């Protein structure tokens, strides 16, 4: 079976699982008394589906895809910060004050459910629809791809309908209060919010990239304010120490710390916080029974947190996290000039430029050994650049998940931004990409290389 068909089925299955998991948990949370509110959830789903159908007619513009990807990330952030707020609210803090009354209004609650459902599902459905359309266009097989995606989507739906009819879903109701529901929604979004098929199924890489960028910017700004001098005056060991803060290991630790803090607070509350004494006049036995019930409820509510922590840690370190922490730096393949150009085949028995991995080539001109990098970007275009930037000594780049990383200063550069000059980005090269190969003019390479190894001119000081 074609890999595109399998990928379409996997994307459909992922979206189906996300929908069904949220449907199941929300329905159980509402319970029998408030089951009527589930209709609002269905209205929200309907609105999202309508937009999804509309998205089939939107051209798969890079800008629209980037916007959709950002929207998904933003929705994850909204639900995650709501979880943090709910956690603090549950510890006894009164974050909302008089605004709490507002959330008890029926109309406000109804509007919130519809809005939250559309906010939650719409970007994912749009993004996945655009992806399915893209791969069907690439393969030229439309019907099979869509049927495959629909089939993957329907499998979990059928199972969920059967489960809900069996009424056994009420068993999970006891595990979910408002903070737990929000945490669950955040977890589902984090683990299944990717819209790049197999290349990026979850939001974990983009969350990690965002945190790395934040840490890089804060450290850089602090160093500017502390007047720490520029690279050339720092020894390699000192710069390596600073580079630690720009590295993926530090970012991974920080991201995990941030993500796992709310569930860790839940766990602490569930297992270690003392149970308050029940108020009112009751016997010793009644008091003990009340406290035992409260303890059991707290521990039950802590279970989703424990699951979240386990799932996030497993996802992070099973291949994805490990790949992110290892810098892939391939050995350059020598290439030679052919009638004024460098010609690199798109694929041969030893390599495939479209595989998403970083490819390096070396070209010797006089006493200069110039390295060139080629990598496929998420929009399926090839980025062709010098293995050097305008700022740092030309030590080149390695690859981590979703980024190329400057080996000298450890700055991560998102792959989708390659091709744009400036800053720590590798110097782009004008290249002609045909159906079979990539052609780069030698004069272009030499001119750009000359710019890299020379600085700016200065006026004479007399």
């Amino acid at each position, binding site marked *: 079976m074609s890999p595109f068909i399998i990928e379409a089925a996997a994307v459909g299955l992922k979206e189906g699982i996300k929908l069904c998991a949220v449907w199941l948990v929300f329905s159980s949370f509402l319970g029998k008394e408030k089951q009527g509110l589930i209709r609002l959830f269905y209205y929200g789903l309907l609105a999202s589906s309508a937009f999804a159908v509309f998205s089939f007619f939107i051209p798969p513009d890079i800008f629209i895809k980037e916007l959709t990807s*950002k929207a998904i*990330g*933003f929705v994850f*952030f909204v639900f995650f*910060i709501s979880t*943090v*707020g709910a956690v*603090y609210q549950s510890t006894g*803090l*009164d*974050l909302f*004050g008089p605004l709490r009354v507002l959330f008890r209004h029926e109309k406000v609650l109804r509007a919130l459910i519809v809005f939250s459902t559309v906010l939650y599902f719409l970007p994912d459905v749009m993004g996945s629809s655009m992806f399915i359309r893209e791969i069907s266009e690439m393969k030229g097989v439309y019907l099979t791809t869509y049927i495959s995606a629909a089939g993957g989507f329907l499998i979990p739906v059928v199972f969920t309908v059967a489960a809900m009819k069996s009424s056994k879903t009420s068993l999970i109701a006891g595990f979910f209060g408002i903070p737990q529901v929000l945490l669950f929604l955040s977890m589902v979004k984090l683990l299944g919010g990717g819209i790049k098929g197999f290349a990026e199924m979850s939001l974990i890489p983009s969350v990690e990239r*965002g945190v790395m*960028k*934040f840490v890089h*910017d*804060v450290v850089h*700004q*602090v160093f500017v*304010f*502390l*007047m*720490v*001098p*520029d690279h*050339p*005056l720092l*020894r*390699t*060991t000192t710069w390596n120490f600073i580079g630690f803060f720009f590295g993926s290991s530090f970012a991974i630790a920080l991201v995990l710390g941030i993500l796992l803090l709310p569930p860790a607070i839940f766990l602490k509350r569930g297992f270690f916080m003392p149970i308050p004494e029940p108020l009112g006049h009751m016997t010793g036995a009644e008091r003990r029974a009340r406290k035992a019930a409260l303890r059991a409820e707290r521990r039950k509510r802590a279970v989703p947190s424990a699951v979240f922590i386990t799932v996030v840690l497993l996802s992070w370190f099973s291949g994805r996290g490990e790949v992110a922490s290892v810098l892939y730096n391939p050995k350059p393949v020598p290439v030679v000039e052919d009638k004024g150009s460098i010609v690199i085949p798109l694929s041969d028995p030893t390599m495939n430029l479209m595989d998403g991995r970083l490819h390096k080539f070396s070209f010797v001109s006089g006493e200069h050994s110039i390295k060139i990098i080629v990598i496929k970007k998420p929009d399926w275009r090839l980025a062709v650049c010098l293995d050097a930037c305008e700022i740092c000594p030309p030590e080149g780049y390695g690859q981590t998940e979703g980024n190329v990383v400057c080996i000298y200063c450890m700055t991560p550069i998102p792959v989708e931004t390659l091709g744009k000059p400036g800053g720590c980005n590798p110097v782009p090269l004008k290249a002609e990409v045909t159906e079979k190969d990539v052609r780069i003019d030698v004069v272009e390479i030499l001119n750009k290389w000359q710019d890299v*190894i*020379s*600085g*700016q*001119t*200065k006026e*004479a*000081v*007399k």
Partner: protein
Amino acid sequence: MRFLKGAYKVLSSKELLLWLIGGWVIYYVTSAFIYKEAFAKFAEGLGKNPLIQALFIVFLLCLYMNIARLFSGRLGDGEKILAFFHVAIYIGIALFITGFFVSASSRNIAIRVVGEGEIIEVRWLERAYSIKEIKASLREETLDIDEEKGIFKYEPKILISDGIRDYEVGAYPPRLVNNTYFSILNFGLAPGVRLLKGSEVLDEGYMPLRIIPPGAMDNFKIEPYPYKFTVRIAPSRIIEKGALRAKLYNFNDLSYEVEVTRGEAVLFTGNSKEGVSFDGLSLSFFKPAYWVMLWVVRDWGYPVMIAGIMVFVVGVPLKFLPFVIGRRRA
């Protein structure tokens, strides 16, 4: 009085602090989705946007009052010293953030590329400073494989003078001179260059170039002539031992690898010691000078940030001390 008590109650509340921190996180993440450089935009806003500055001041007030509330809460448990140990780490963080805010909102900065004998004049400086001396502190000889040792015996320094006193300025930490910080941001070589036609000197001077560390290449032009001169420091010796090949650079006796071009045409390639001749002209090099890129900063927030870092570093072990003392007493 009631108003003040009410204001204190609100400002010292944990809820307000969480809302302010949460609000900033929402602002930053939203900004990061719209702009590529969200943090730089925020730092710029701290310097220019009155709304951001006002909110930040409220946040700082709230932070300090929460620390005061925490301290007074711990006082109720017993000793003042232990209460201080508990909050020292937060005081360090608060001081650091305060220093950051003061830096962002009130910093004056100037960058100057100067050589020996030049004068530094900046608009907020009450007096001008002259560069009396540049101490390059380069090793006499450097191997190009000495990466870990670096090229400096010690950091480069300059001697500046206000006519009354001399001040030595290095790369780090910055030197405070009359409420202004001076530090060396970058350093380089300015070869002495003379353009001749026969024996007639057409032009001469020092050309600040980025050719340190050795191996780096830079280029310059001499107006109004149409030539581009590309220069790098030439090794005095090449040492080969088996497969290892290293270049030795002697800063006491410098020569340069020079390429002269006019447009696309290469007119000369070679070593400066052999003489650089092209189109009836010649280029000679005389003893180089050094240039430094000097950071001149007036920043009231810098000492506060440093104090914050120091208090934070001291506060980290202090935070655990009451726990250890408590266990020992038990």
